[in-house]
Structures are given as C-alpha cells and as structure tokens.
C-alpha cells in the first residue's frame, strides 16, 4: 500500500478517536470529594418543552446560595444542567454522561414523565439519590431511590373537583385535558370526586400538546353547557383555549392544574384575560410574592445571582426540588456518603420551606397529598382561596 493511501486511511480512525476522547474519564464513583459535591439535573432547554427549562435553572439558585455561604461542611456544590429536549433518549444520554463521566452524587428535579421514566431504572439500579422528579405520575411512587415532591395528578384532579363542587357550588363540570398520564390520572381523580357527589363529567375533551387551533374543542365545551371547566394542559393550550372561549362569548369558571399557577406568565400571554376571568388553579408552593423570610431571601438571591431570570413558578419549582437535598446534605455532616444522605432523606418529617410539607419514611417516598387553591385577582394577584386541602380518595387503577 502506498504512502498516500496510508495517510488518507489513517485520517478516518484518527478522526473517530478525536471524536470520542473528549473530557477523559473522571470516574468519580462516590460523586464527591473534599472540595465539591456533584449534583445534576436534566430538563428541556431547547425544543417545544423549553419553557419548563426554568426548573433546572431555579435549582441552580439554591446551590449558588449555598456556595456563596461557603458550601456545605466545606464542600462546594458543583451543579450540572443537561438539556434533554424532553426526549427520553436524550435524557438517557445526559444521565449516563453525568453518571459515568462526571460522577454525580445526586439528581434533583428533572422535568417530565417520559424522560423520568426512561432513566428511572438506570438510576435505581445504580443507587443514585434523586429528589423530586417534576411529574405527578404514580409510576414514580414506589422507587426507593426517588423522593417525590410533586403532588400526584390524581390528587390534583380530585382536589380541583372538590373545590369546584364544595366551595364554588358548580354542578355542571367539563374537562379539557391533555391526553397523557397527566390528563388521564387527573380525569380519574375528578371522576372519583364527582361520583362522591352524585355528579358526572358533562364532557371530557382531549387536546394534543402540539395543537394550536382549539376552536372545535372549545365549541364542544360550550355545547355541553358546562359552568366550570377543569383544564389539565400546558400553558400554551390553556391560553389559546381561554382566548378562543372569550371570543366565542363562552365564559365558564376555569380551574387549572398547578402547572399553570404562574399568573404573571398566563396574564401576559392571555393579554390580561387570566385575571379578568379570575382563573382558579391548584398550587403546591408559597406564592412567589409571599412575605415569608424564606421567599424574601430567594427573591434577593435571584437579583444577585440570576438577574436575567424571570421570577416565575417554574423557576420557583426548581428551588422547591433542591431544598430537601440541601437540607439532607447539611444534616449528614462532614462524613458524607450516599447511605447517610439516604437515611437523612428518609427521616424528613414535616419539612417545609418554599414548597409543600414533606414527610418521608424508609418505605414511603410518596409526595404530599395536599394542595392549595389560588385564584388570579383582578390585577394578577396570587389570592389564596383555600389553604392546603388534603385528598382522602384512593386511586384505584
């Protein structure tokens, strides 16, 4: 073989080698050393689900605050955000990269049911701590290495229906839902609650998360004659359906999921209709403008560390999922280990900072079953209509 060919053919394997020998193999089995603890989170920063990406950036605020105070027992937190585009195969890639190349100690948050389910087994088999997946799907509830924070969608549906019937006195209730685990679990909750009161859903209309023209769906709701419509869908669809309904002169009481309790955003994208219609939502956090010392501290920190971020509910959700882990790391003391943090998380009782009241035991990592009900005031205020209602119904699948 002559020289030219050799040079040429050498290029290909060299190129391949170049591609795959990136950052070396920092195989940190333990996920921490004397100076740092590595924590990761995935979340969509690009693609259609990118607005939820603020969750991962919200957690960063908590870790920045911790690092600013000098870290936890002398260790700084090194935090990795990975973009998964809400695509399970990308989530898997991100998680494996963080585990096998960066060696992370724990994961917090992680937006979405499908991405979370895709990596659940991998994280569980590798015994990696994971706190607060951002999904209320029941499939996460019996994982010994995952501590749940986000209230179950079944409970959410049940509590929204309870509020609509018992406190607002509605009897004609319809549902506009996103056709996935979120919508279907919530529908089960709503039906269970209404059955208790001898009522029935007038109609349940599905929406695909990609749809942008909802006039036929809203026409169906209107034709059913519902006085109250429970909505289980993403902000974009909620805004479009509200605007469509108003343009048709159909003005029921809207009750929405806790994923839509960001009144600033919703008011902005509905041009004030959200406030005008007084939309009710569930919620599981403090109101973002609450005057508790905790929230004041977070707002100040946000101005200091991330002034370009909007102070929204997704951002706050990121803070909520990071809090228990930071607490547990502090609790464990300087002798850090996965088992110690696990035991600390298992001992969490009546823990509350910006999020809901959390209680976990060694064999119960389920999320809290209580939600609050907020209503958007005429100027976009976060009015608490009802504080912490617990759902006592049981999901029978």
């Amino acid at each position: 073989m002559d020289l030219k060919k050799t040079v040429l053919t050498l290029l290909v394997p060299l190129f391949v080698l170049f591609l795959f020998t990136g950052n070396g193999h920092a195989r940190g089995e333990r996920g921490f050393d004397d100076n740092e603890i590595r924590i990761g989170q995935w979340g969509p920063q690009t693609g259609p689900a990118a607005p939820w990406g603020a969750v991962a950036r919200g957690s960063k605020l908590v870790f920045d605050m911790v690092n600013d105070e000098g870290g936890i027992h002398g260790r700084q937190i090194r935090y990795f955000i990975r973009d998964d585009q809400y695509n399970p195969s990308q989530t898997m890639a991100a998680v494996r990269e963080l585990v096998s190349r960066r060696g992370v100690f724990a994961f917090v948050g992680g937006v979405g049911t499908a991405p979370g389910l895709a990596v659940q087994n991998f994280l569980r088999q590798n015994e990696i701590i994971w706190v607060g997946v951002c999904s209320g799907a029941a499939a996460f509830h019996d994982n010994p290495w995952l501590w749940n924070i986000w209230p179950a969608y079944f409970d959410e549906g049940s509590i929204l229906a309870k509020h609509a019937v018992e406190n607002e006195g509605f009897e004609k209730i319809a549902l506009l839902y996103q056709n996935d685990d979120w919508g279907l679990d919530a529908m089960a909750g709503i039906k269970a609650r209404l059955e208790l009161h001898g009522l029935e859903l007038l109609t349940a209309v599905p929406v695909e998360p990609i749809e942008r023209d909802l006039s036929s769906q809203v026409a169906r709701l209107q034709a059913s004659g519902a006085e109250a419509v429970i909505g289980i869908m993403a902000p974009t669809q909620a805004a479009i359906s509200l605007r469509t309904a108003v343009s048709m002169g159909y003005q029921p009481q809207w009750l929405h999921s806790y994923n839509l309790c960001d009144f600033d955003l919703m008011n902005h994208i509905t041009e004030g209709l959200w406030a005008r219609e007084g939309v009710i939502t569930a919620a599981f956090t403090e109101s973002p403008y609450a005057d508790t010392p905790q929230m004041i501290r977070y707002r100040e920190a946000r101005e200091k560390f991330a002034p370009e971020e909007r102070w929204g509910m997704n951002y706050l959700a990121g803070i909520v999922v990071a809090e228990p882990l930071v607490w547990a790391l502090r609790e464990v003391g300087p002798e850090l280990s996965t088992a110690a943090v696990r035991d600390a998380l298992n001992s969490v009782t009546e823990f509350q900072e910006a999020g809901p009241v959390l209680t976990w035991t060694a064999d119960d990592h389920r999320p809290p079953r209580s939600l609050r009900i907020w209503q958007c005031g005429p100027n976009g205020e976060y009015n608490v209509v009802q504080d912490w209602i617990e759902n006592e119904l049981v999901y029978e699948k």
Partner: protein
Amino acid sequence: MGIKRTYYEDIELFSSGTILFWTIVLLIALFGAPFFLSGYHLYLFSIIMVHVIVAVGLNILVGNTGQIALGHAGFFAIGAYGTVLLMTMLNLPFFAALIAAAFIAAFFGFILGLPALRLEGPYLAIATLAFGLAIMHIIGHTQIFGGRQGLAAPMLDIGIPQLGWSWMLFTETSLYYLILIITILMVLLAVNILKTRAGRAFVAIRDSEIAAEVIGINLTYYKTLAFAVSAFYAGIAGGLFAFVLGFFDPFTFNLILSVIFLVMVVVGGLGSVMGSVTGAALITYLMYDLFKNVNEVPVLGDLILHVSRNWLSAVGSMDNFNMIALGLVMIGIIIFEPLGIFGLWIRIKKYWKTWPF
C-alpha cells in the same frame, strides 16, 4: 470510482486490500470498545448503531429507488412497540418477536408503497408524513399500546425461555454486542441486496421509471418491495431501540425523527451504504454530543457566553448552539458536496490518487 471490468469485481464485498484491512481495524475497534469506553459512550454507540440500521434501510428506498419518505419514525415505532408487545403479551422469545415485528413493519411498508405507485415528490412526502403522524397518534390513543404514557421494555432474554433455555442480557456491554452484531449483519445484507436482481431493479427505477418498465422490471413489485425492505430495517432498528432505552412513549417517534433519518441518508450520500453509515453516525453524534454543553468547553464556551451575554439572551438558551451547529454542518456538507460525506470521500480519494496533479 474505479472501473469495474468484470461481474465478479462488481459483486466483491471489499474492492481492495486497503478497504478490507481498515474494515477489520474498525471491527476490532468496535468489538474492543467496551473495554475502554464509559457507559455513556456505549449508550451513544448503541444509539448510533440503531440509527445506522434505519439509515441503511432508508437509503435503499431514498437513495437507490429514488422515493422520498418522511414517515420512517412510524416504522421505527412499529418495530419498538411490536417487539415489546409480542414479548410481553404473546410471550414470544426475543428474536422471534424482533423479526415478527420487523415483518409487521414491512407489511405496513408494503401498504404505504401502494399509493407510492402513483405519487411522487412532495405528494409522496405528504402521504408518508401522514403515515408517520397517524402511527404516532394511533399508538397514543390506544391503551393496549400503553397510550401516551409509554411502555417499558421487559428484561432482555435472547434465549428461548419458553423452552427452558434462558440467556439474560443484564449489562450494557452485552446489549452493545448484540446490537453490534445485528448492525453488522444488516449492513452486510444491505450491501448484498443492492447487488442482486432486486437491487439493480431499484436503481433502474430511480434512474428512469419508464426505461425500467420497458426493460421488463415489474414496477409494482419492486417499488412496494423497496418500501417493505426499508420498513423491515426500521422495524429491526426499532426493536433494538426499545431495549437500548428501556422505556419509550409515542412522542419519541415524532416527525422530527423522520426528518432526521432522511437528513442522515442525504448527508451521508444518496445511494451509498457506507455513506449512510457515516451519515447516521455523524448526525447522531452531532445531536447527542457535540457542543451539547458548550458552556463547559474551554475556550469556545467562554466565547459563546460572551456573544450570548452581549447580543443574545443568556437565560439557559446557550444549548441552542447545538441545534445551530447541527444546521450549519448539514448546510455546509451539502453546499460543499451534493453527494454528502460519500462525495467528500470520493473527492479526497481522487485528490490523493492523482496528487500532486
């Protein structure tokens, strides 16, 4: 490239000793990879190989037969769902389920091939695109398919547990080897298909349907065959993908994936099997790894952050750089060489062969 003088030269698998040599080197590298690569890289390689199978199959349809297809994510989904459901519901062994699912995909490919007899260009694009959307939507609305909530793959057992002979694959490494072997077989199969009567018929149809018909090629048969073969490939790939990921939902198989498959084939080089392999590897690598966390890259990261701070908004949007880079690479390759990576390869080869002239 090079003049083929005899029939045997044409059907040879390796046209020169050099290619044989480097193929063996590549195979040794691939088989040795688990010994020095991290779990992340094994996963990335597995995804790449799954995409290679789809791209090689799609190339038979797009590159060799000259049809356009924007619905291959649908066949991919049929493969994934078919394999898992046949295993869990009908209790079939893995290989039987995989092949059966691939044949189901091939059957759907045949069905989709029927309108293709009359449609071409954008009309065919819309028909295939509608197929992909419909598959995604039907799966999402059918509870036995797991609905929108998705489906988890069972433990992978490549023996026949029904006869008491079980061979469980627990580790990522064993799964990697399984996929590697199947990928090699599928690529070899594709190379060989193109050298058979059918393969030549495909090329004749691409070059001129009328001329092909005149020389006695049964258009109906070979066009639907091309669709079926290419769907079979996507089905096999889907079945493997189900186990690489372990969990999937219908939205995984969206239109964007179909478009990306097509891009892989075109960027790799229409009509070339090795082109499709490299195209799939390059595009997958770009999507999953390169510039994925550009803020952590030493010099470039700071530069991009600076640009971002000054002219764009820096709120977590730097990850868009990955998408921008992917777009630019696609545009660059096609502008530079319409035959894609395969064309670049030919150019480099020609340049060196005739150097310094």
